């Protein structure tokens, strides 16, 4: 059970379930120093800690690639499954069906999602499986030393001078269109925005799809790359400022209410989106997609929460599953009695 540190005055800060942040840490990262993925791992640790999620109640799922290695670098006390390339969605679907009481956090990359994994990604979004799906998006294949992925922007240039001549897939637009119920984009370097977004994601019931742009310092952080720190600092256009107040916190209002879009989450938390774009309504699907398309035209990278729907039933609701995990239902529930077999046999005579 939770290993509560003595809560003396000098002890480390504990979260509301009595755990210090060290209980959310993972192994030492083997990714490159300065890799955006490491910053994302840090924010995941912060968000889980601040939200007071029990680490043992979390399943960390991933595919293959630099991004998919990162679950080893956060939350060692959580159950982890590093699966095969592009197939994390199906593995997560199975795991959530087996135990829908768990929080499922999937970490994928742009290659793992938008190329080899596109088929499974698309169908995951359709199902609205309760899980958080993070794309650590650097537009490049790192482990195989720097090939373009399908999210690389048109005209973006590799270190080797190769220019990308195919248009990018906007995973957020796709996710919104297909049925994900919480879709946002952030930047690994934006601590505040990413942390708020992750905390809201934890409170959401349904598929959360977060595209987190995460520059690859080794292969894609140079002049000419549209996924570089420099480019993002110049082109990042937030559509809303994200505030999140967890259900166990005192709800304070420090925004000008005329500019605020409040969303009540399933657990009673409040997601506060302060509009930066005029008339942006994050519950309007068509507008969300149009806004994203228009930003592409203007060469802008929009960040923020694009779409949220707290009403749509999840895949678990649709399957009408019992509340307890299917995995551990007792034999008395899962194996029909002898009389049932006898009746079946009688009917076949």
């Amino acid at each position, binding site marked *: *059970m939770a*290993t509560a540190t003595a809560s003396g005055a000098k002890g480390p800060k504990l979260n509301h379930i009595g755990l210090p942040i060290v*209980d959310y840490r993972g192994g030492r990262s083997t990714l490159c120093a300065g890799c955006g993925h490491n910053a994302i791992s840090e924010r995941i640790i912060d968000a889980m800690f601040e939200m007071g999620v*029990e*680490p*043992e*109640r979390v*399943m960390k*799922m991933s595919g293959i690639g630099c991004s998919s290695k990162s*679950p*080893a670098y956060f939350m060692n*006390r*959580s*159950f*982890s*499954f*590093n*699966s*095969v390339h592009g*197939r994390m*969605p*199906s*593995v*997560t*679907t*199975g*795991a*959530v*069906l*087996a*135990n829908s*009481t*768990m929080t499922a956090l999937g970490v994928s990359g742009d290659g793992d999602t938008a190329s080899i994994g596109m*088929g*499974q990604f*698309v*169908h995951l979004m359709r199902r609205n499986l309760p899980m958080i799906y993070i794309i650590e998006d650097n537009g490049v294949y790192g482990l195989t030393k720097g090939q373009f992925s399908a999210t690389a922007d048109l005209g973006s240039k590799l270190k080797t001078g190769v220019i990308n001549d195919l248009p990018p897939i906007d995973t957020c637009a796709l996710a919104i269109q297909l049925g994900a119920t919480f879709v946002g984009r952030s930047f690994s370097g934006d601590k505040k925005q990413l942390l708020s977004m992750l905390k809201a994601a934890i409170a959401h019931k349904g598929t959360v799809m977060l595209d987190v742009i995460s520059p690859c310092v080794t292969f894609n952080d140079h002049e000419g790359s549209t996924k570089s720190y420099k480019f993002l600092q110049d082109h990042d256009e937030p559509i809303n400022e994200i505030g999140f107040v967890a259900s166990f916190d005192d709800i304070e209002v420090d925004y000008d209410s005329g500019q605020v879009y409040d969303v009540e989450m399933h657990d009673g938390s409040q997601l506060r989106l302060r509009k930066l774009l005029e008339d942006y309504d994050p519950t309007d699907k068509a507008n969300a997609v149009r806004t994203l398309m228009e930003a592409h035209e203007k060469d802008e990278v929009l960040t923020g929460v694009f779409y949220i729907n707290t009403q749509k039933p999840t895949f678990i609701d649709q*399957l*009408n*599953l*019992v*509340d307890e*995990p*299917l*995995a*551990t*239902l007792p*034999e008395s*529930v*899962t*194996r*029909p009695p*002898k009389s*049932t*077999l*006898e009746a*079946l*046999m009688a009917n*076949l*005579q």
Partner: protein
Amino acid sequence: MATGNLALGQEQGESSARPRIVNDFTINVATVNGSGSQSANSVLLKSIFGMGVPVSGKNLFPSNIAGLPTWFTIRASKDGYVARKRESDVLVALNAETAREDMLSLPTGGVAIYEENFNLKQYRDDVVCYPVPFDKLTAALCPEAKLRKLVKNMVYVGVVAQLLHLDLKVVEKCVQKQFAKKQKVFDLNFGAVETGFEYARTNFTKQDPYFIEQMSQTEGKIIIDGNAACGMGAVFAGVTVVAWYPITPSTSLIEATTDLLKKFRVTPEGKATFAVVQAEDELAAIGMVLGAGWAGARSMTSTSGPGISLMAEFTGLGYYAEIPGVIFDVQRTGPSTGMPTRTQQADLLSTALLSHGDTKHPVLMPGNVKECFEFGYAAFDVAERLQTPVFVLTDLDLGMNNWMSEQFAYPEKPLDRGKVLTAEEIEKLGGFARYRDVDGDAIGWRTLPGTMHPKAAYFTRGSGHNDAAGYTERPEEYVAVMDRLARKFEYARTLVPAPLTYRNGKSKIGFLAFGSTDFALRESLDQIENEHGLSVDYMRIRAVPFAQEIHDFVASHERVYVVEQNRDAQLASLLKLDLPADQVVKLRSILHYNGLPIDARTITDEFATKEGL
């Protein structure tokens, strides 16, 4: 059953012809796919069964929704032979397109019942002909044009029933069961049977020697197809997660499973204790199975050859990361798309060795519908005990055709959920190493997500790992895990279903086979005995990895014939990998791979040729 002068006429007809052939012949019903002949075929099959005569039915259908030729063969066999017979004795020709060819394929002395317009008599004068105006009879019976196609089939049942001397009361019962509780539908259909029966009675004098007579060989027996039996097995294994993608011929396995789950696995509050997901493809289906298995659910999928190919990568992950899951493979004819509605046993190598790297998997191989049920539930125990994907290998012939069987017995043992540690146990142990062999059976202990202990979690990966589930590229750590996996597979030899020995006398000659080949082989062994005076031995292999008994069987014979339904002698190849070098030379193969179920005559003749008999 006919009376008066007509009966006398029949007697005369018979006496002038060949001796009576009772309960030992095959009926071939030639129709068009999508014409709704299935109910009629089923009623005829079950009527023969209802008269206590051992019977089997085979649907030879095209890969098509409607419009192409379909044949349904029903074999009645007083000796209990249920394999395909190469030739049919009685033809019911309802398909104009194939009628001539069907007629020409009859043996001399065969019987043809056909739509009179087809005028088939012109092709054969050595066949007994019963032309029936099916269309006219049906039109009179059924004013609704839409239903005529269906009703026509029931008219043929009546004609056949009368000619073969089936008890009309038994037929009536079967029609009743077929259209349970729908009185109007029953009336229409049984009316059609009676019309056919009456037409035959008043218009034909029996000139052929074929009769069905009451026996008592089917009492207490059931009729079921292998796919339904597998599905039933899975349900009695307590399966909770089913993920699948439609593919012939395995789809009906999932349908049967789902039907039973909906019936028996819903709580009083109306909640499901199972999840069935139609996945986007076979890759996703097996991914869901492994995700669910990893999280502790009993999970399964069902597929056929092309799906097996797609599941290759994931199955290797399941092997290496040691995750349970059950994969039913209802084999069809390969390679590639092959012939989707024809049968074969050509996925043995691809399942047993599926995926890149050093991988191997337990494969359970039921030889009849009862074993489809038994292995259908046992596979889950084996998978969870061994923590690995397990295949259940059946085929289209076994899976989609109707087979007579003993009733299935309720599983004797409780579920074996394998080695899973609880939080309390971890507390007592002070921790655990996921892939460490602490019990000497080469199987580590696992934990399930949600086990509330700070030391319960581990990192599951398909990349190189040591026995504590840590990432490794160290040669000795990698080898230690691979060697333990090899030992686990050795242990599996004792866990999977043992082979069955049907005959083991003093013969120098032995036979080995697996799966649905059994039906034809057992008939063939009787033929070999009757025709050549040779009593040979036979062992049926029921699983990979091979049990010691199989080695002993080969060792105790001079020549061992391996009979299987594929071109490349896949079972013999696997045996050659497993047997000592001096035993390998004993193996000889008898192969059948044209897409039709193997028949006894093929085996007997090839054996005789090979033995120089």
